[in-house]
């Protein structure tokens, strides 16, 4: 890796100022993607501005119907502290990478990176979450902008994620056996206003909502309601691990299984309007 200066400010204001003064600066969150990227010399920032000492960016706070998760909260902390309020989100966080990676990697870092096979984007999109930044609030629908691309501006830092808690939810992923990233992952969330289905790992343009599935499940919350549906394979990603047809098949299968799991496990009444 090229040498780089690391600075560890104590406040968000100081971090923003440092980024403004160093046009070639880069935010360092948990580093679990950024450090491997730097090792491969795929990026060469002159300054890394660590968020590691900014207390305000950490922790899960419980509000009525909602979790507010600090951007620098690790996956391990979300897995533990969201377990009661939002079990599907906690389970998703507890399935990212491995235990040591989960002790460093953060929700804000994952969202800002927007890896097309990352888990968090599916949860955030299916939950209709709001990404709070140093400058504004961005709805999940507006935030993800294609592979590794987001609505964030230069020097803008995610500070928190506001996640509405659904009545019931399930996340299923089919892990790529080597990387453990999602070859396909489906998050199904049941809200008063309807069912939301978000898909990661499979979209040619990154995470997406499968609106046909949402409409079908709104009419009848049953795996069989998905039977007539087919994803447009032209919009599905293909690589050496799995072609578009296989990924499309996985998405449908995982959605069916998620619905099935909810029908078996959700609290009585949670799935009815």
């Amino acid at each position, binding site marked *: 890796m090229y040498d780089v200066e690391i600075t560890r400010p104590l406040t968000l204001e100081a971090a923003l100022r440092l980024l403004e003064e160093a046009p070639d600066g880069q935010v*360092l969150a948990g580093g679990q993607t950024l450090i491997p990227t730097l090792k491969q010399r795929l990026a060469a920032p002159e300054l890394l501005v660590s968020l590691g000492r900014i207390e305000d960016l950490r922790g899960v706070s419980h509000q009525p119907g909602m979790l507010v998760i600090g951007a620098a909260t690790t996956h391990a902390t979300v897995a533990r502290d969201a377990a009661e309020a939002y079990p599907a989100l906690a389970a998703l966080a507890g399935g990212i990478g491995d235990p*040591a990676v989960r002790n460093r990697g953060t929700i804000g870092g994952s969202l800002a990176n927007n890896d097309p096979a990352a888990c968090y984007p599916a949860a955030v999109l299916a939950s209709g979450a709001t990404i709070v930044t140093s400058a504004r609030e961005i709805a999940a629908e507006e935030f993800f902008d294609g592979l590794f691309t987001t609505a964030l501006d230069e020097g803008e830092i995610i500070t928190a994620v506001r996640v509405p808690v659904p009545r019931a939810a399930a996340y299923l992923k089919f892990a790529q056996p080597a990387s453990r990233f999602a070859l396909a992952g489906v998050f199904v969330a049941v809200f008063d206003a309807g069912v939301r289905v978000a898909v990661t790992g499979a979209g040619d343009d990154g995470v997406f909502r499968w609106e046909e599935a949402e409409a079908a499940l709104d009419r009848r919350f049953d795996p069989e309601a998905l039977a007539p549906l087919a994803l447009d394979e032209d919009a599905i990603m293909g690589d050496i691990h799995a072609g578009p047809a296989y990924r499309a098949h996985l998405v449908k299968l995982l959605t069916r299984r998620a619905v099935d799991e909810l029908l078996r496990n959700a609290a009585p009444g949670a799935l009815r309007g």
Partner: protein
Amino acid sequence: MTTISMQVNGKAVSGNVEGRTLLVGFLRDHLGLTGTHVGCDTSQCGACVVHVDGLAVKACTMFAAEAEGAEVTTIEGMAEPGAPLGPIQQAFQDHHGLQCGFCTPGMVMSAAALLREVPRPSEAQVRDYLEGNLCRCTGYHNIVRAILAAAETRGPQGEAQA
């Protein structure tokens, strides 16, 4: 260059490092603690797992500067030189939980982190927790046996020092 200070295995240490110096490089090259291994250098294999403020991390995927002020425990901190092995280390020996031994420091540190969190894990929990530790020799069975045995021999509280 930056001066960093931290506690490593209970001792105050400091050193001058570049920004790009990784925690594993600081431990091995600056402090001579070569028990922490670099296997893949891509955060896959877990040979470099150490504890930072009580949490297992991959020392090849954390900057040394980020450990400023932290308490770090490495495999060298799991038993005093010349003293008997800790219960996890002893269980690895008793149950043939290693062959070449390259992955063992990381395995032991991951096992210690697991047993602190879950003093009496099931076999499935042990296997799940070792997701990020690769072993090319043993096929894992004896590693899992060793960790389950260590859980039996340790105190009911699962004391921090293994």
